[in-house]
């Protein structure tokens, strides 16, 4: 059973169409929802929570209809908003306990679950101090904890890595991965950065301007390409010229050379040329596609799986709200 399914879901605001006939279905697991700012991600989450009635179309979450069973959905899901949503003058413990009770957990259970959940997201002694003194990374953890405290079946994480430094970003992504695998809770995580979702998601849905651009398993985005990345210590240009002379299609990119694979012999030619020039070969690897390339190249050729894409009308869009 898909955890989220939408059917021609459309949301029009007076001045902007946030979602345009979006039809998509995703299976349990960690699902990434990608789109530029203003692509309709946050609107979609609000609709799926049953808070915002769509203009037209239907959707279900965990098999429950958003129009008729909104309350049942809200009992079973957790939500971590994109923006700051924490009162500064209470402690993390106090706040998360309160939020657990707002999900119907009895007082004792609420306290136990809050302590467990804060420990799982990596907040220890500092959880007794007022939230106002926390770093951005700690606040994000509290926001995550309040979404998890009632043990939902599915959580919506809206831009959880926003504002984090690289280390904090990595920790948050690891945490999201653990929620999906170890905790057994399905995750819908949004981001405007494709690269970071590549690491944690099983499935990625890309929307743009309220339309579905792609929905498929992560592997399908990152299949091997017919390009070799070659890195040498120095003498990149010398090597490039020799390879070009040898009839290979070569182009520089940063410190690397990208070589199109013409056949098995390509590897031998590169190896031999490097040896002749007495260069030190640091690496030679077959390049993988990056999800970003979906945006760079527009509509793709082969489809890996998931829902079939609708006709794509891809045009970069600003951030209207």
């Amino acid at each position, binding site marked *: 059973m898909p955890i989220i399914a939408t059917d021609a879901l459309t949301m029009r605001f007076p001045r902007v169409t946030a979602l345009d006939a979006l039809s998509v279905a995703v299976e349990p697991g960690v699902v990434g929802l990608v789109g530029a700012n203003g692509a309709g991600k946050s609107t979609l989450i*609000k609709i799926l*929570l049953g*808070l*915002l009635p769509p203009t037209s179309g239907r959707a279900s979450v965990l098999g429950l209809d958003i129009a008729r069973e909104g*309350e049942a959905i*809200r*009992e079973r*899901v957790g*939500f971590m*908003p994109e*923006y*700051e*949503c*924490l*009162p*500064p*003058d*209470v402690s993390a413990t*106090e706040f998360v306990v*309160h*939020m657990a*009770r*707002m*999900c*119907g*957990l*009895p007082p004792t*259970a609420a306290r136990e*679950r809050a302590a*467990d959940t804060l420990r*799982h997201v990596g907040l220890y002694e500092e959880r007794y101090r*007022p939230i106002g003194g926390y770093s951005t990374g700690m606040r994000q953890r509290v926001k995550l904890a*309040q979404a998890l405290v*009632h*043990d939902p079946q599915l959580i919506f994480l809206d831009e959880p890595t926003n504002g984090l430094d690289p280390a904090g970003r990595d920790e948050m992504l690891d945490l999201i991965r653990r929620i999906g695998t*170890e*905790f*057994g809770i399905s995750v819908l995580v949004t981001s405007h950065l494709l690269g970071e979702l590549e690491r944690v998601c099983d499935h990625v849905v890309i929307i743009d301007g309220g339309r579905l651009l792609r929905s498929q398993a992560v592997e399908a985005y990152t299949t091997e390409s017919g390009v070799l990345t070659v890195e040498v210590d120095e003498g990149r240009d010398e090597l490039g010229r020799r390879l070009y002379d040898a009839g290979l299609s070569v182009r520089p990119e940063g410190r690397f050379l990208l070589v199109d694979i013409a056949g098995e012999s390509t590897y031998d030619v590169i190896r031999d040329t490097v040896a002749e020039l007495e260069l030190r070969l640091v690496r030679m690897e077959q390049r993988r596609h990056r999800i970003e390339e979906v945006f760079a190249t527009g509509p793709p050729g082969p489809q890996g799986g998931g829902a079939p894409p609708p006709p794509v009308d891809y045009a970069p869009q600003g951030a209207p709200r």
Partner: protein
Amino acid sequence: MSVSTIHDIGYRHYEGRRLGRAYMTRSLYLHNLRAAYGLGRPARAKVMPFLLAAIMLLPATGSVAAFAITKEAEALIPYAAYAPTMQAIIAIFMATQAPVLASRELRFHVIPLYFSRPVGHLDFVLAKLGAMVTALFALMAVPITVLYAGALVTRAPDPGEHLVRFLTALVGCVLYALVLGAIGLVIAAFTPRRGFGVAAVIAVYLVTAAFVAIIQGLAEMESNWSLAGWAGLFAPFNLVDIVQVRLLGAESSSIAIAPGLPGGLVALATCLGLAAGSVAVLYARFRKAGLS
């Protein structure tokens, strides 16, 4: 050989009970009631409400002490007159604590976290209004109870009369709390910055009180007693005093009181209308905030 290992018990699912709407609303009510007195928040949040509560108690204890020594009946403040006499303190309490309940969670965008849970919009508003009304009621009812207990202990004459006046004054306190809570929360809910909220609530209290006093003063110069009485409907303390005098048999402590039973009924209807209007406005306000 003994091998000791630390077991990470890992994530455990919650298999226990999940309670329903009544429990959530009750929890929310208690949470807000505690917040109104700064409980569960840092020490400085407790200073103002408890200071004001202490000031509210001073006249009551002083009055009882004076009566115990002099045995003069006038030394005891009439129960129904207590709230109007102390209205400045009550207004300050309303001004400083209504923003705590109404605008603090708006300002820090906490509201969507409630409505992404199985918390209903109406339950949410009723819990907040209920908590504010209870906090204001406690502020007024405790000193009156002290007065009554003092009167009993010092053997004031006519205990039956005292009991009736004490109980009707408590009913009056419920109305005061309802009217003030409704007005305070609505104003605070539209002024997200706390300082502005406090100032706005105080301003509304002062402006209405001054406006009504001026109208009443002018009307009395013209000997238009009925206009002076009806004008009292537009100031919160005067409004409830009309109900106390006309329907609960208290003695007036305002400049003028709307005439007769109709005056009392209109005032009571105004009180209830204010409360209902406040619920409607807060409902719309928080519903919108839940979507932002």
